[in-house]
């Protein structure tokens, strides 16, 4: 009896350990592959010069600038609307079938495949509103994709603020808006920021939504204009690894691009982690 128990416990424990190791193993392999093959081409020149000669030479400055601008535009569009929407839903809206329906729809939207957002962006921004394939159209499309995440994480951050804090502000004569602005938002800021940064890091790595809304195959100059096409890191990577005519020649550049993209996303996640850590310290 005791033996059987021991054996079962070893099997249970072993299964869990095996699953964990397997997952970590693949993660490490991916990271190792990209780092070892990508680091060879990484240099200051690689990240600071324009792509040349049909992308077989030169650096990736254009896609870097494109991705940064795209993410900024996404943030500019998604953060104010998303945060305001979450504040309304969480603090003002009464609990009715309508708000429950809206909330459920927002949750569902965050599960919609990103290519659908791409198609929607193409129909609405590129064709409907005549923005053409441009940085603006792509930024708005990514903004739409980010909205459900920002709304959901902001709502959760607001929900974590105990009602006693709201009552405290009301009891000293604050209006509802003052209570939210002065007490609720500052206390939930770290939670909101964490959600925002994670969402943006996800958006920065998206390919499908920008595929037909503004990303370009090859531009050998950087432009800061919002009504022109742009290059973006994830799309550049996709091009280099599957669409380029001399795939073998550009493979090192593809790995270099992948490494840069991973580093960018890593730093964004690190920012979120630091914000959360600071918040916990502050709480103590």
């Amino acid at each position, binding site marked *: 009896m005791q033996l059987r128990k021991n054996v079962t416990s070893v099997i249970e424990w072993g299964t869990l350990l095996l699953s964990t190791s397997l997952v970590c193993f693949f993660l490490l392999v991916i990271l190792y592959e990209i780092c070892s093959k990508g680091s060879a081409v990484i240099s200051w020149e690689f990240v600071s010069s324009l792509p040349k000669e049909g992308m077989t030479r030169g650096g990736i400055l254009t896609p870097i600038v494109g991705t940064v601008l795209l993410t900024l535009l996404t943030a500019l569009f998604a953060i104010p609307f998303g945060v305001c929407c979450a504040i309304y839903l969480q603090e003002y809206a009464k609990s009715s079938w309508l708000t429950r329906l809206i909330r459920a729809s927002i949750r569902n939207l965050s599960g919609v495949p990103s290519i659908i957002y791409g198609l929607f962006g193409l129909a609405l921004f590129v064709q409907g509103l005549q923005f053409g394939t441009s940085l603006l159209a792509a930024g708005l499309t990514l903004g739409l994709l980010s909205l459900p995440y920002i709304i959901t994480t902001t709502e959760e951050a607001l929900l974590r603020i105990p009602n006693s804090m709201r*009552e405290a*502000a009301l009891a*000293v004569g*604050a209006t509802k808006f003052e209570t939210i602005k002065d007490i609720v938002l500052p206390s939930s800021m770290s939670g909101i920021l964490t959600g925002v940064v994670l969402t943006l890091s996800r958006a920065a790595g998206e390919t499908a939504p920008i595929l037909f809304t503004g990303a370009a195959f090859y531009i050998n100059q950087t432009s800061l204009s919002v009504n022109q096409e742009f290059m973006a890191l994830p799309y550049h990577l996709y091009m280099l690894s599957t669409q380029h005519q001399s795939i073998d020649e550009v493979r090192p550049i593809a790995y270099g691009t992948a490494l840069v993209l991973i580093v960018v996303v890593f730093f964004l996640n690190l920012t979120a982690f630091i914000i959360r850590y600071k918040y916990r310290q502050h709480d103590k």
Partner: protein
Amino acid sequence: MTSKLSVENLHINFGQKEVLKNINVSFAEHQVTALIGPSGCGKSTLLRSLNRMHDLSPDAKIMGKLRIDGTDIYGKDIPPTKIRQRIGMVFQKANPFAKSVYDNITYGLKINNLPHTKDVVEKALREAFLWEEVKNDLKMPATRLSGGQQQRLCIARTVALRPEVILMDEPCSALDPISTLKIEELITDLKDRYTIVIVTHNMQQAQRVADKTIFMYLGEVKEEGSTQQLFNNPKHELTANYISGHFG
């Protein structure tokens, strides 16, 4: 004895549930009135209706007349923020803002466009018997104070607004005996300047601080009278049973 607050024919429902039934009481100026009764009798509901704290709960339905110096508390001509400035509140669990000690006092003053100088802050903290303990560290986050200090800070924040009435919802229930004693001394000191209504579960506390006591049971006022009379000579059998600890 002039009455500061008066409650007439007050009924409160939460959804289908009737929480308060036809309450008629008044609270005398510069006196401490204690609300006692078993859990769920509606004493906190009554207290919170006095400064419109139920405005936050959409399913609360309030019927009846509540007045402060004759002014309708739920009247259209006076904004709820003004009512809450005149009728301050201290909660069961100390809830200082996540700001410094200093800013905890000035916040209410700032949003109400009242002067918020260092003198005003000092006066409020002195009034709450907290000044000596924090005077060298006013920039410290309020959350670092002890539980009792936090509660006195909440009282200081309330008195800084120079309210006319202070409502206290079991202010000592989360505190140790020494902090409790300090708050009770403070209440006795404050009643010269403010009208105080306190909800308490602690019979000894009611006897120590209150001039008048109201006993509530199942949403109704069962008995009210001077604290001495109510505790030594209760008229109602329920009151007698409750204060002697047979239920509650």
